[in-house]
């Protein structure tokens, strides 16, 4: 079996080299048949990678411990779903997943664009080939998942904290996001290589970018939820380098999603867009590098390994290539369209971009600071939570405000008076909300108060947009409210899907502000029958239970929960002792109040021999809005992603014309 896996990876290596070399030659010399065969090589590379991946999955499912990777990450007693997810429990498997996702994206993107952007695909193929080559080389030569050993009786097992449904899904979504950014990057580079610097590469990859961005967002939320439930320190995001590694490219991609709209609409910001997409892709490579190389110490980091230098080299190649291409095509990328006014939709997008990139780069700077300071001052300095919180407030809060204002500003040139009229309602509602919150005592946290006031502003601005749109449609067509609303959204999926995503970001902001600025915490050692009070709850420690689970001994402390005079039942927190892995993991107790979005969060820090337990209890208001935001986020993305027949037809005619132009012999 291992031979088959290795052989499949060698085939992928050959196919990637072919896609790169033959594809490059074909594009350069204009050889159509060769280009065709290079493209097919790229498609085939997906299937050979799939074979390798299936071999590894089979190895896990069949407990084939002669594969070193399987022996290192699985055991016979492991439940089936975790045997499968152990695939990406380590470095080699994660790299293989990267390659599988990459070749999958490449094959699909190239296949779907083969008609509409034929001359672009010719140049995109070698770019994909090059990226695939980098990863295949790592898998073949440096870090192979198919190393064999004399099979031990049982494997080492999977780390207990990875034995969680979220850890089955989280890495997959994260990789769908990271790697998906390769699609717009490859098309952008293809466009630069081909010399066609119009917005076609953006149109051809719009949905791919959105898919990648959505997946990266979901991946992070799943990771946050995993951290919240499983790591059990009472938070969901710790500004850990590895968490930042996913957030940084997501922020760059968010900026990109916004700025491409200006290029599509006004033909502006071409240089900026290719720069942003290169930044986003290189940052996603950097993120993978951070998690794989062990260069930054992190609670998540993998073993320091041989792939570090290779990976760094790979990133350098990508950065140099992208920079050189942008530099080379700078004359063609320059546009004549100018920003007409600082009060306009374009300008709002621009501010949004600057804030997002500023946030992205300051987080990157903080994450890389231990390395930078090591190199410059000879001592590694770590920046902590205050650094990130500071910049999140400085850049994040204006960004939140802008999210409300931006959609209300007219394109090209807006008058200040018109803008004032447009924001009058939302601003009034926001101020009233702010005043109400101060009266309720939310003034204990100024950033929290500002976040809530801005959130009220954005939410009401979004509602106003929906109401105005529906009313205008009704006035025009005389449709009923639900019909008008449905058609409004259906005919402008991008716009209204975007607003729904904005609403999700607001929910996220409310949840984050609520759970971090207004939470309460208590800690205490309780003997049986003793109580602890926190945030309006009273917890009484009842008993200690112990039972044998499938692969762990589960110890739970059971507490009665009361709030005011109400009996809210019991909550259990404890520890699991995993026998094969010889590890203990904290199992927290969480009681969610679905009406208020508040969580009661109990950690059993220490179980003493005499039966007393040290508890740490958090009350986190509104934290559930963060997870609700995830659902709304997906909904909004789906609306924006949903295929639109009218848009397709419009694009088809537009590019049919463009193709005719490009296929007539060039006379210029």
């Amino acid at each position, binding site marked *: 079996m291992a031979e088959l896996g290795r052989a499949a990876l060698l085939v992928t290596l050959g196919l990637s080299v072919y896609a790169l070399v033959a594809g490059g030659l074909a594009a350069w010399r204009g050889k159509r048949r060769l280009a065709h065969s290079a493209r097919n090589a790229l498609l085939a590379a997906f299937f050979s990678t799939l074979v390798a991946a299936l071999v590894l999955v089979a190895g896990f499912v069949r407990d084939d411990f002669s594969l070193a990777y399987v022996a*290192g990450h699985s055991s016979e007693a492991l439940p089936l779903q975790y045997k499968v997810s152990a695939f990406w429990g*380590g470095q080699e498997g994660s790299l293989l997943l990267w390659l599988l996702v990459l070749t999958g994206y490449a094959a699909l993107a190239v296949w779907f664009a083969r008609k509409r952007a034929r001359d672009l695909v010719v140049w995109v193929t070698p770019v994909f080939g090059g990226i695939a080559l980098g990863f295949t080389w790592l898998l073949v030569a440096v870090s192979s998942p198919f190393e064999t050993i004399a099979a031990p009786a049982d494997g080492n097992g999977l780390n207990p904290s990875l034995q969680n449904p979220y850890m089955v899904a989280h890495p997959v979504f994260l990789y769908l996001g990271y790697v998906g950014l390769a699609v717009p990057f490859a098309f952008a580079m293809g466009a630069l290589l081909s010399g066609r610097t119009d917005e076609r590469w953006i149109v051809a990859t719009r949905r791919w970018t959105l898919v990648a961005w959505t997946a990266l967002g979901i991946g992070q939320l799943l990771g946050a939820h995993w951290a919240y439930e499983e790591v059990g320190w009472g938070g969901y995001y710790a500004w850990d380098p590895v968490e930042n590694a996913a957030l940084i490219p997501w922020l760059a991609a968010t900026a990109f999603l916004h700025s491409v709209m200006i290029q599509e609409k006004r033909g502006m910001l071409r240089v900026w867009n290719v720069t942003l997409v290169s930044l986003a892709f290189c940052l996603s490579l950097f993120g993978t590098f951070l998690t794989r190389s062990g260069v930054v110490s992190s*609670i998540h980091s*993998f073993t320091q390994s041989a792939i570090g230098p290779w990976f760094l080299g790979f990133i350098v190649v990508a950065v140099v290539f992208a920079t050189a291409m942008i530099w080379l095509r700078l004359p063609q990328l320059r546009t004549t369209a100018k920003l007409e006014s600082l009060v306009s939709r374009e300008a709002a997008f621009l501010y949004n971009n600057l804030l997002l990139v500023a946030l992205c780069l*300051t987080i990157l700077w903080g994450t890389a600071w231990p390395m930078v300071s090591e190199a410059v001052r000879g001592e590694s300095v*770590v920046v902590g939570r205050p*650094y990130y919180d500071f910049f999140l407030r400085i850049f994040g809060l204006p960004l939140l405000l802008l999210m409300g204002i931006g959609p209300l500003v007219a394109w090209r040139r807006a008058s200040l008076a018109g803008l004032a009229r447009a924001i009058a309602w939302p601003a009034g509602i926001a101020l009233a909300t702010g005043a109400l919150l101060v009266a309720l005592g939310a003034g204990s946290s100024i950033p929290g108060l500002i976040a809530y006031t801005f959130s009220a502003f954005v939410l009401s601005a979004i509602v106003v947009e929906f109401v105005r749109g529906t009313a205008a449609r009704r006035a025009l067509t005389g449709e009923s409210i639900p019909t008008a609303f449905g058609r409004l959204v259906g005919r402008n999926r991008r716009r209204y899907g975007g607003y729904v995503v904005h609403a999700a970001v607001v929910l996220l902001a409310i949840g984050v502000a609520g759970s971090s600025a207004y939470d309460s915490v208590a800690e205490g050692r309780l003997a049986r029958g003793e109580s602890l009070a926190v945030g309006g709850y009273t917890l009484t420690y009842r008993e200690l239970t112990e039972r044998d689970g499938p692969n762990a001994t589960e110890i739970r402390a059971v507490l009665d929960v009361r709030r005011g005079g109400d009996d809210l039942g019991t909550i259990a927190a404890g520890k699991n002792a995993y026998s094969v892995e010889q*590890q203990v993991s904290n199992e927290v107790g969480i009681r969610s109040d679905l009406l208020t979005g508040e969580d009661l969060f109990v950690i059993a820090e220490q179980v003493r021999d005499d039966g007393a337990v040290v508890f740490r209890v958090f009350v986190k208001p509104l934290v559930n809005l963060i997870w609700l935001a995830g659902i709304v986020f997906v909904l909004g993305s789906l609306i924006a992603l949903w295929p639109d027949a009218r848009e397709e037809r419009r694009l088809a005619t537009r590019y049919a014309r463009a193709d005719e132009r490009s296929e007539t012999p060039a006379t210029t």
Partner: protein
Amino acid sequence: MIALSVAGVLAIFLLYTSIAGGGTPSVSPSELATRTGEVSLAGRVVGAPTGDAHGAGLRFVLEDIEGAHKKRVTVLYKGSVPDLFRTGRDVVVTGTRRPSGLFVTTPGSMITKCPSKYQAAENPS
């Protein structure tokens, strides 16, 4: 416009670093001797930990992870102990070195920097 914004970002950045200083130096046990301020100390746990993190404090010894001349320092720690804390593991704690040589930590500052978190500690070959 863009240049202005970049300048603005830089200004904010300088403002921050001047107000808050910048972060905590990360050192190994052998680099600790000359330190007085707050540092984050990364090392490998050697010997058996004693005491109670939720009582008078947990005492353990950290040793340099790398290098030929490994030095050791005794750490006093209170607060949450991560699941992965154990003899032989790599941990990071934040705190200050007392004149006595004892490293007293900020409560709850321990994170485990565990090589076997995702990867088998040694290849079973």
